[in-house]
């Protein structure tokens, strides 16, 4: 074999060579210091590239993208090419869209319920605004639930604190309201699998992930976040195939999300409320 060129060295680093070629490249590397330096430099620049983009995986996914992925889409379907041609004006439009979406939840509300929202009186507006804010919060919680369930607990890119990390409970609790502990749901057959830190409705939140062998129950997520809204009793809602129970207590919002029967969720939520002193 001739001295390997860059293309072959890169394919070697990428694990794309068959066993025969790989062995020949390794023989060259054993005897050629210059080639070893070249491989090391190529590997280092590839690593730098990965490091540059790694943080993007850990950023909370913007709510507008979760809404777009869920569909229906916003009041305007983005014409990406046109958007880029008129960058500055479009950003203004988009910012408005984002602000509206944050206030009104899914964009569909802007078209449908939104019309009533702007036509109604002030008192009605306030109540409606609170309702759509709750709806938006639940939409995002449901989106984050699906994101985690689809990826699985093993996806290190999504789970900020895996359950197998040292002192996982302490790390999670640091992000929970003070004096709170990680809810123990083992009596329900639910094992803690990890936690993810989110921003929902502009407020920090922690998403706890539990799984079980009980197929009737299925995986669950518990979200605990900050809220400026008044206390509210546990309330049932649905998003697609997801059942959700949510409540607010002393500046914190709670949601229990899963495909489990609502009876299970009520009982588990009672347990969580008791454990977290969030009744």
């Amino acid at each position, binding site marked *: 074999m001739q001295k390997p060129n*860059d*293309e072959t060295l*890169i*394919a070697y680093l*990428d694990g*794309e060579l068959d066993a025969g070629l790989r062995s020949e490249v390794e023989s060259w590397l054993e005897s050629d210091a210059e080639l070893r330096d070249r491989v090391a*430099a*190529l590997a280092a*620049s*590839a690593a*730098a*590239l*990965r*490091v*540059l*983009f790694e943080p*993007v*995986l850990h*950023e909370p*996914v*913007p709510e*507008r*993208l*979760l809404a*777009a*992925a*869920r*569909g229906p*889409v916003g009041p305007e*379907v*983005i*014409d*990406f*090419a046109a*958007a*880029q*041609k008129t960058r500055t004006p479009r*950003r203004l439009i*988009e910012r408005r869209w984002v602000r509206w979406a944050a206030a009104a939840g899914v964009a569909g509300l802007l078209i449908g319920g939104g019309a009533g929202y702007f036509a109604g009186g002030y008192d009605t507006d306030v109540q409606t605004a609170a309702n759509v804010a709750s709806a938006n919060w639940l939409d995002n919680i449901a*989106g984050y639930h*699906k*994101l985690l369930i*689809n*990826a699985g607990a093993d996806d290190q*890119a*999504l789970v900020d604190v895996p359950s197998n990390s040292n002192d996982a409970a302490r790390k999670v609790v640091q992000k929970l309201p003070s004096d709170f502990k990680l809810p123990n749901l083992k009596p329900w057959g639910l094992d803690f699998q990890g936690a993810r830190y989110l921003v929902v409705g502009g407020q920090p939140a922690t998403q706890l992930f539990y799984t079980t062998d009980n197929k009737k129950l299925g995986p669950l997520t518990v979200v605990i976040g900050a809220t400026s809204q008044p206390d509210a009793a546990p309330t049932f809602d649905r998003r697609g195939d997801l059942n959700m129970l949510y409540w607010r207590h002393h500046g914190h919002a709670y949601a229990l999300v899963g495909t489990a029967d609502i009876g299970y969720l009520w009982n588990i939520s009672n347990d969580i409320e008791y454990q977290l002193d969030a009744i």
Partner: protein
Amino acid sequence: MSVSISDQLIAVLPRLRRFARGLTGSAAEADDLVQAACERALTRAHQFQEGTRFDSWMFRIAQTMWIDLLRSRNTRKEVAEDEALHVGSDEPGRRVEARLALQEVRVALAQIPAEQRVALLLVTVDGMSYKQAAEVAEVPVGTIMSRLARARVALQAKLEAGVHTRRSRNDAEAE
């Protein structure tokens, strides 16, 4: 039970955002691209072939939209303003060095031709095999291999040049 398109979209969003960030060089433009790609995927859901990789399909939509845009405006995007480096004077020296190095990677990537950049992002950053990257880019595996090699060599050369420039500047400042 088959997973809905929306569920699969949500699961692939973090990787798609990373890919788009690499293509556009800008967080805002990247999210615009991802949003537009999601919308296109939902309107063309019937075109997705069951049994094929959903993530490949989504990456293909995003890269096609981006390449189309570049061709339409026939310019190459430089490093976006909102991604520009702002180094605080009170930052520890080593951290500044690290940020400068990452900024050099970002600048170098922005100077690489779009189709090579796609190959680089799919294989080197996302970890796809050459075969999967070829499916996304809709080119033969050999083309991916050569684009990738040209991109990696160019990246390497630009980074080495950056290191030399930085050393020269440091030496000059020291004197």
